[in-house]
């Protein structure tokens, strides 16, 4: 069994693509069920950690800006570490991730 880092990214800025409050409520439920499902399969390698939606960005000129960032279209929505046999299984798991329903994406990295 290997460990994989799953990073969820989506556009938090473009007004037109933001979910309505009802959609958001539904969205939260989807996340919760997805995490619940992963936990039920004993696939979570670490306890879940919540991250704030604010953030800061340090650029190459060492300048610091507060999030959300103009420079980056897609910000990190969250990340988890899961247990999976290989990249195929990790990708299959990522396919169920609710971030995809909002035009986001999931980046996967294997722990070595």
């Amino acid at each position: 069994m290997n460990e994989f880092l799953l990073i969820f990214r989506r556009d938090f800025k473009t007004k037109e693509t933001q979910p309505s409050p009802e959609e958001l409520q539904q969205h939260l439920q989807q996340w919760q069920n997805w995490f619940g499902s992963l936990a039920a399969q004993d696939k979570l390698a670490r306890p879940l950690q919540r991250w704030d939606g604010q953030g800061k960005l340090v650029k190459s000129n060492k300048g610091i800006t507060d999030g959300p960032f103009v420079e980056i279209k897609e910000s990190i929505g969250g990340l988890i570490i899961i247990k999976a046999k290989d990249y195929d299984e990790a990708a299959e798991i990522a396919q169920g991730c609710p971030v995809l329903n909002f035009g986001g994406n999931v980046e996967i990295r294997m722990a070595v």
Partner: protein
Amino acid sequence: MEHKELIPNLFRTEYQKIVSVLCSLFGIQHIEIAEDIVSDTFLTASETWAIKGIPENPSAWLYTVAKNKTKNYLKRNNVFETKIVTEIKHNTPLNNPEIDLDLSDQNIADSQLAMIFTVCNPCNSEEAQIALALNLLCGFGINEISDAFLSNKEVIYKRINRAKEKLKEENIKIQHPNNAEIKDRIQTVLKTIYLLYSEGYYSISQNTTLRKDLCTEAMRLTYLLIQNESTNLPQTNALMALMCFHSSRFDARTGLNGEIILYEDQDQSLWNQELIDKGTYFLSQSSTGNTLSKYHLEAGIAYWHTIKKETTEKWENILELYNNLIILEYSPIVALNRTYALSKVKGKTEAIKEAEKLNLTDNHFYYSLLGNLYSEVDVKKALEHFEKARDLAKTIADKNIISKNIEQLKWKTI
């Protein structure tokens, strides 16, 4: 007549009170002396009461005799004098050479709290902590404990003695824990009580009275923690709520012949409304602060089960609580229960997909769940799963329930 009932009950409640006070006074090294004095007190009681009848206030009678026996012991025993009296003087603020056993309600409560924290010390395994708790905190004899664990007496006797020896080796102090110690150790204490309760609630022992006693004792210990300000924490109340809700169905969940009656088939009029109300009270007491313990989540789930009416709201809430519970701590049973809740919210087809991912192929509940989910989708598959479940089930009671499912399903196909 009454006599027969009174002594064992009194023995149980008073035994642990007096033992706690004596142990707190003598220290862990002399725990057997404390136990001997109490046993001797009860022996005197049964002999005297058999002839003279039961005194008006049996507890007070026992306290007086215990006090006298302690004094006599201290006077008579030279070894004790030299070895322990120094320690006692050390422990008690009194310079009085005459030792007085303080059996006031307050000192009993304080000593019991100190004893709970001593018995639930993580230097012993959970299994040993439970046996020790039953013995020292609940006044259960070796016979009853081995009956509850379905273990032989020798094993239990050894387990308890080893646990006592371990406490001595580690020189665990019997003292009122301070707030930092409580914060550190309350988890272990609550877990032991929770396991003690589960032992009673889910035990495969056929002895229903004994199992009920175990549950009552676990609730009594929790109540003791609630009555003490420093241990009256949100999670303590959540645990109490959980136990009240479960216990409310105790009489409804076993049939006349001791067979298990599943939730859906239970006679709701047998649910104990008083316990449900108490559970609701403790659940509301638990919702302060910002810790959400597994007891909160389990109490929430148990609360929704006290409402028999099937609504979308009920199962959505139960699923949400199960999601949080499984994220907090993985367990196969929680994983299976979560999937059952999912079937109630999202339907059987989706739940089957999720269930098959669990892959708990050595667990009969896994196949029972699949059998249940497939019942209305694919009867042939459902039967296959139920048959696997029956093969894997370990107790006759479980096998019987599964057989009943198979019979019902076969009727459907005709």
